[in-house]
Structures are given as structure tokens and as C-alpha cells.
């Protein structure tokens, strides 16, 4: 299979459908994660950051202890997730947002990785060792970045078309 940015027929039907569905589902997930934080006046990234373990834990504590940094962290998370989500769902600039989204979930993974010996105060919603859903979602976003679909199914199609014209 060819990875061709401009070709409409680069993917076979089921390949295309599969990747578009993956993009839409991840977009939906991001969008709701973002909006649910936006509409909850009590949400803060502090609880998550405070429970951070491994290499980023001291950075996390620095962020939590500084109201300005914490405010920035809250803002970036709420709006970042929302915009990435909408972008993936609609297929608008979706290649870049896949990359940004991958950055988000990779950070979530690295701030609290499910490694042996790291104990978290909140129990996870599943059973993980090294690999968790964040890591998988990050990889899925990598796939979306590598196999872009916004220009085939999505608003990017209009931009791709006007460029080729």
C-alpha cells in the first residue's frame, strides 16, 4: 500500500474505512475529554499531576505548586483536547492534530507510567503493566499521522482540492 498524500485511491476501501473510523473515534474521545473539563468548574489537572511518578514527577510538583503554571496546564489540557478532538473528528488539519494528540497522550503516559514498582493513589480503571490505553492511543495517533485520511474523508479534502487546482 502506498502512503500517498494526494491520491484518493491510495487505500483500499476497508483500509480507508478502518482508518477513518479510528480517527473519528479518537476524535470523539478527545473532544469529550476536553469539553467535559471545560464545563466542569471544579476540574483541575492538579490531582493527576500530584500523583505523578517517575521522571516527570518533580516537574509535575513544580506545576502544581505554582498557580500560574497550573492555570496554564489546565487551559492547555482543556482546549488542547477539545481542539484536537474536533479536528480529528471533522478531518480538518487532522494530520497535525494527530501529532499534537499523540504528544498529549504520550505525556499522560510518561507522567504516570504503569511501571513495576510505581504505586498510584488512584487505582487504574484496568490492569496494566508497562502498556496501558494511553500508550495504545498514542500509537494509534501515530498511525493516523502516518496514514492521513482528512484529505479523503474530511474537511481537509476541500483544502487538498484547492491546492491541487
Amino acid at each position, binding site marked *: 500500500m502506498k502512503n500517498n498524500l494526494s491520491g484518493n485511491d491510495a487505500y483500499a476501501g476497508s483500509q480507508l474505512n478502518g482508518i477513518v473510523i479510528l480517527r473519528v473515534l479518537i476524535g470523539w474521545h478527545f473532544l469529550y475529554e476536553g469539553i467535559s473539563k471545560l464545563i466542569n468548574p471544579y476540574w483541575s489537572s492538579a490531582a493527576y499531576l500530584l500523583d505523578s511518578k517517575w521522571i516527570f514527577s518533580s516537574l509535575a510538583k513544580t506545576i*502544581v505548586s505554582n498557580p500560574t503554571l497550573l492555570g496554564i496546564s489546565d487551559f492547555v489540557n482543556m482546549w488542547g483536547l477539545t481542539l484536537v478532538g474536533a479536528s480529528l473528528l471533522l478531518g480538518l488539519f487532522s494530520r497535525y492534530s494527530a501529532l499534537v494528540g499523540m504528544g498529549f497522550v504520550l505525556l499522560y503516559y510518561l507522567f504516570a507510567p504503569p511501571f513495576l514498582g510505581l504505586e498510584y493513589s488512584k487505582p487504574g480503571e484496568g490492569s496494566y503493566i508497562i502498556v496501558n490505553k494511553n500508550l495504545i492511543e498514542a500509537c494509534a495517533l501515530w498511525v493516523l499521522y502516518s496514514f492521513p485520511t482528512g484529505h479523503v474523508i*474530511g474537511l481537509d479534502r476541500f483544502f487538498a482540492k484547492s491546492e491541487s487546482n
Partner: protein
Amino acid sequence: MSENNNQENNNMERRELLKGLATVPVFGLFLLNLWQKMRRDAIKKSNILSNLVQENSEPAVIKGLSDSRHLNIGIIGYGGRGSHLIRGAGFATKGWTDTVAENAKKNKLDKQFETFMTQEDLNCSLIGVCDLFDVRANQGLDASINEIRPGGKPRSMATRYRHYTELLANDEIDAVIVATPDHWHARIAMDAAKAGKHVYCEKGLTRTFDEAIALHDIVKETGITFQLGHQNRQVEANEKAKQIIRQGLLGKINLVELATNRNSPWGAWVWNIHPKGNAKTIDWDTFQEPSPNKFPFGEEALKRFFRWRCWFDYGTGLSGDLLSHDFDAINQIMDLGIPKYASSTGGIYFYKDGRDVPDVWNATFEYPDKDLTVLYSATLSSNEPRGNRIMGHDATMQMGGQSGGGSIHGFIVTADSESTQYKERLEQGIINTKYPIYTYSPGSKQIDGVTSATSRYFANKGLLYTYREGKRVDPTHLHIKDWLDSIRSGSQPKCNIDVALHEAVTCHMATESYLQGRRIEWDPKKRALV
């Protein structure tokens, strides 16, 4: 042919458009679901609360009153608690400010220094210090001149007095803080009132029942401004809880459960014996003057001087130290007053170190006219956070002690599965007994570094921090401020002598029950224990 071409072009364009907009309906579906969810949540919220909870704003911070009149204060008993109270007034030792400033550098989450430095300047001076232990008296003097404080350089250095009567004889002193062991409270506070000084007295109010009645009457006669040291009176969560109970969210309340859990030598009053404590540095004879049993100075005396809460000679153990706090909080929330009956049992089951106060102790208080029992249960050998529970026919309020959630002195209200008030809403699934119908967690967006088990205990009880205008403040500071503001304005402070008497009589009823092995009855007409 050209028509065919046109049609093909049109078809192409339509297909282009469809492909470009293919996921837009999914976005619409998302928005539809989001809107439905938000509407459901809003209906749920309005149905659950249905005008029951009127959101009052948090208590206002009274500003400017401190400017009206400068007050000179004296401290009698500059120990662990005394030094905290004096910090609440804006004076800390150099040793303390250095340590907490250092801690803040090491741990960014440690806000003690910041909380102290951003305290309001209460426009007062610490001009008299009285302590029977030289080391502590000198620390008090040090605190009076430390320039690291809210409001800058202090006006004057305090004078040390060896006996409290000398301090009371200083006419420049307007008000005194009494933070001695309990066996000295009544005498000092009464003498201070007679000398025209306003009094802030630590809890428990007195060591005995008779002293409590006598102190109450002297304060009333002299008309001084009296504040008992229950800083929980300043805690926003308690005011919120009061409001919710008044609005009937819990229904009829027949049982209240209060609990104390501690599990450390410090929490059991096995405090350090200061290495510099000896016959020369401690005025032991004055210390034990009002206590029933006398001991010669020696090892036993040192233990008794530094760990006085372990003996009935100087205090009332769990009763005056910890029940008093929980009782006063519930009295604040529910306006209970003095119970009709009290009984208690317990024993010395863990700390067999020569103490005579129980380390496991349970008390029940009956309010027949209110159809209510208050249960108090304490252990000094388990840290299990039980919290306090107010159990109503319609819902239960759980305060503090919640595991997880990170809730500091907040509370949750959960509906009862057999509630009458919520029957319909329970059946409709609008209210679920698994989830709280009301949650109060102040400063939930704020994080603090309260870590040690004992400070967490206090924080869960709301005794360390509360919030005003979104800023973290020490309720002890607010309580001192409330007292000083009341002196200036001539109003009654929040823990005045009347509610102080409720606390004292209730605690003494329970203590007497333990000591006498029988149920104690309060006779409000004769003001006597029967």
C-alpha cells in the same frame, strides 16, 4: 455528450462534497449527545436540590476594623499551642520562620510560610509573655521582636513575667491569651476578667465542672470579650453544613456519630521532654499549685510537666482535648446545647505508661427534647479515618475522614434508600444512593502539602486551614482576629462564653461519668450535675 459530461461533473462534485463532509454528521451526533448529557445533568442537579440548597456566598472577610485601635496582648503559656496562637496574631519565632521558609524552598507544596506571611496584620503588639519554663518564655520574647511577619517590624519587645499575676498587673495590656494546661485556665481567666483584660482561652474551658460555672459567671459579670479556642468556628465547611441541615436536606436527625482516631505517640500526648527542662528552668511548684495531687520535682514531675494531658491532675484527656473540638463543631452546626444525660466508658488499653486518662473512650449524650443521641468514639491506637456522621431519615452527612478524594474538611451528603423526602426521585433514578446529592470541598482547586498523619487529622477536621475568597487561611488566625475585632467593636465573638459553657459542661458530664462509673444528668435549673 456534453450533457453527460456535465452530469458526470455534477456527480463528481457531489461525491467530493459528500466525502469532505462525511464526518460532519458524526460531529452533529456528538453535539446532540453532549447537549442531552448536559441537560440531563442540569435537570438532575435541579431535581436533587430543588431549591433546598440556596447557595450562600462564603463569609465575608471583615477588613479595616483592625485599623481602628491598636491592642497590646499578653500570652500566658507559650507552649506548642500558645506559640501557634501567637502566630495567629502575627508573631513567630525566628527559628520557626527560618524553618518554614526553608521547608517551602525544599517542598514547593509546603505553604506554611506563605500562609503566615500573607495573614492580615491584626494591628496588635505582643508585650507580655508568661511561661513557667525559661526556654519557652524566651521563645515568646523572640517571637515578639522577629521582623519576619505580616505587617513588618514589631513596635516593641515583650516583657517576661514569671507569674501571671504580674502580667495582669501591667495596665498597658488590653487582652490576654491563656494557653496553659487546663488546670490553670479557670483561675487565670477569672483573674484576668477581674483585671479588666479580654480573654482568649484555650479549650477545654476548665479542668472541672465547678470551675466552668464560676468562670462563665465572672465573664458575664465583668462584660469582657471572651473567646474559647475552638477555631473550627471559623471553618466555612461547618457554616455550610449548618445551612444544609437547616434547609432540611437530611430530614429528621436522630443520631450523630463523632469520632477521633489517632495512632502516634505524639497524638497520644507522649510529647518530648525538653533536654533543658530541669529544676532551675521550670517553676514546678507554681505549675502544680492548683492540681489535686502533688509530686516532688524529679523524673515523674518532668513527665507530668511536658505530657500533662496524660493525667486528670492537669486536664481531662480525650474529653477536653478532642471531644471538645468535635462537640463544639456539632454544636456550631446543630445548635445542640447541653445534653440531658451523658455516660461514658473506656480504659487505658494501649499506652500503659503511667497515665490515668483513658486512651480508648466512648461517650453517649442524650437529648430527649431533640429526639437525638450524640455518640463519641475515640481511640489513640488506630488511624482509621472514620470522620463524623450526621444521620438523618432522608440523608447522611459525612464530614472529614473520607478516604481518597483528597477532600480536606469537606463533606458529602448521600440520600438514604428508605428516605421519604426523596422517595419519588429515588424511584425515578434521579437520585442514586451510591452518589452524593451534595458535595462540599472547599479549595478543591488548591493543593497543599499537609502530609504528616497528625496534621492530616487536624486538616480533615478543618482545624488547620480554611478558605476565604479562595485564599487559604489558618482558622486559628481567623479565630484570633474574630476575638480582636470583637474587642474593638464591642460585639460577641463566635465562641463566646455561652457556647463555651455548652462545651465545658458536656465534656465534664462525660468525664464525670467515666470517673464515677454512672450516668450523669444535667439539671439546667440548678445548673448542677445530678
